[in-house]
């Protein structure tokens, strides 16, 4: 256990910096951080080293020297198509998730009649938001696959799902399937924000002569905006990086995670190796940007929910 040998002094160095010599305060600060060494070591070994290795492989040219050719190749030609395809369905799935998840959260938060309703929605969301992976893919294969029961029901109503270009592995299909975990995830993200909307704000708006529309346009939505936008980014990252579900639905190598695993599978010449890692590197960059923005937005959104 890391902190068995700590000194019993527990003040945060506030007193120390004033009186004690500089060396002492530096030592104290070092000893305070030293308790995190096991955690940092763990992260370095099992998260940072793999991540850095991906970049080090990605930044190799064919002759083994440092260079950006693989990174460039990973965003050109078929690889670019894959990124565009993935961006398209991930943004679509995130948008659908934000809209429906937002409405569902609002409906659950404001419904007063069955008292258990809100609990059911939030508990179910907790389960469904984590329900990626194989079971989800299997469930949708049996509902909307070519022989799926839903496909048959729609057929009976005269809607041939597969007459157009619907496929579970194409944009429309992936959006449908990913909504299954995106909508609940959005519910979980926005419920606290919706709870943060005070009824006094609505009353104040009404007293000043504002309609429901005014309230939403001038008060409600601006306050929810950071949560909604943050939710969009979270759902986007979530959809973009999903592997297991997509893998079961399709062999479509236009989906970036599937493409990465295809390159990792290794039936390809050595020179193209770096392209797979470059795809992964671009993915990390993209996820980094979305999650950083999400983090900032969440800080901002918390301003209203803490009061």
């Amino acid at each position: 256990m890391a902190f068995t040998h700590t000194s019993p002094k527990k003040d945060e160095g506030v007193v120390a910096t004033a009186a004690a010599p500089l060396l002492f305060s530096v030592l104290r600060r070092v000893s305070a951080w030293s308790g995190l060494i096991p955690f940092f070591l763990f992260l370095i070994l099992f998260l940072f080293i793999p991540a850095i290795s991906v970049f080090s492989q990605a930044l190799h040219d064919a002759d083994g020297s440092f260079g950006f050719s693989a990174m460039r190749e990973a965003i050109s030609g078929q690889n670019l198509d894959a990124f565009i395809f993935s961006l398209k369905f991930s943004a679509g799935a995130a948008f659908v998730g934000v809209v429906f998840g937002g409405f569902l959260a609002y409906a659950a938060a404001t419904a007063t009649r069955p008292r258990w309703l809100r609990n059911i929605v939030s508990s179910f969301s907790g389960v469904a938001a984590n329900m990626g992976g194989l079971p989800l893919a299997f469930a949708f294969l049996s509902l909307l696959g070519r022989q799926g029961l839903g496909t048959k029901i729609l057929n009976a109503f005269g809607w041939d799902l597969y007459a157009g270009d619907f496929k579970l592995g194409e944009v429309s299909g992936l959006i449908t399937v990913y909504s299954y975990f995106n909508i609940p995830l959005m519910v979980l993200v926005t419920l606290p924000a919706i709870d943060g909307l005070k009824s006094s704000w609505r009353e104040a708006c009404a007293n000043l002569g504002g309609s429901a529309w005014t309230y939403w346009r001038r008060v409600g939505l601006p306050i929810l905006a950071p949560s909604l936008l943050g939710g969009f980014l979270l759902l986007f990252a979530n959809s973009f990086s999903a592997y297991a579900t997509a893998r079961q639905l399709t062999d479509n190598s236009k989906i970036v995670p599937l493409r990465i695993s295809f390159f990792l599978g290794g039936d390809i010449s050595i020179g193209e190796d770096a392209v797979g890692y470059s795809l992964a590197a671009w993915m990390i960059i993209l996820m980094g940007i979305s999650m950083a923005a999400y983090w900032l937005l969440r800080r901002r959104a918390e301003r209203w929910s803490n009061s």
Partner: protein
Amino acid sequence: MKQSRSQRALGRLLPTLVLIASAIFFAFPLLAMARFAFQNLQVIDLGWNNLFEKWSFSSITASFSDDFFAEALTLSLKLAVGTALFTLGLLIPTAVWVHLRLPKARVFVEFLTILPYVIPAIALVAGIVVVKPHARWFLNSDYSLIPFYVVLALPFTYRSIDTGLRAIDLKVLVEASRSLGSTWIATLFRVVIPNLRAAIISSTFLTVAVVLGEYTISDVLLKRTFPSFMAQYRQSDPRGGYALAILALLGTTLLFVAIGVLSKSRSTRPQQVSRSQENEILV
């Protein structure tokens, strides 16, 4: 409020419609899968007229007798136990340390714990493939998955333990225990951990759910975990594959229901805590 009657009716109708539509959307895939899995009929023949015919559990009992079933399930369960223990051993001391000695690092550590979202499983496994030639002695073992699964579960588990620590007055408890002459080890095991029981259990369940569902890493590294077995089994026997998926779903759902019940039982605590509990499942 000035609202016409029709407007108000619309305001009530719309949420109801949203709720009904969601119920359909979320229930139907599961119901369809149940029919695929447990009705002993050709998929093509499934229709309204035979909705209640030939239901049986034969598909799932058949999958139990597959040679690799027990092997895969045992491996996944061992990985789950290993990951849960590793997680607790790593995160409890870290989180306690942050709360006691380094409160200003709280945001930083929390930021580190959501990094697995930035480096998703498929990118992580790409890194593992790179490192593999240099650490075969380690990565060839099935149990080498454990630390990586700890990483994947980190956003959930750390948050759960952190929330638990926020709900108790850690500093006072520890100072009381220390001033009564207890050692650090005794304080940890007899004061801190008992007070964190609910958080520990829910973080353990979250870990187990993550491990039993993890497919990306084990698929790319060709490990025979339960999800990999499930995917493979479906190739030879689709009905059995669907049945296993339902079983896995039921298991995970039970874990999450248990987490829900646990966090409810702490609802005597201040409102703020129970609210942040609500989304401990995610970032």
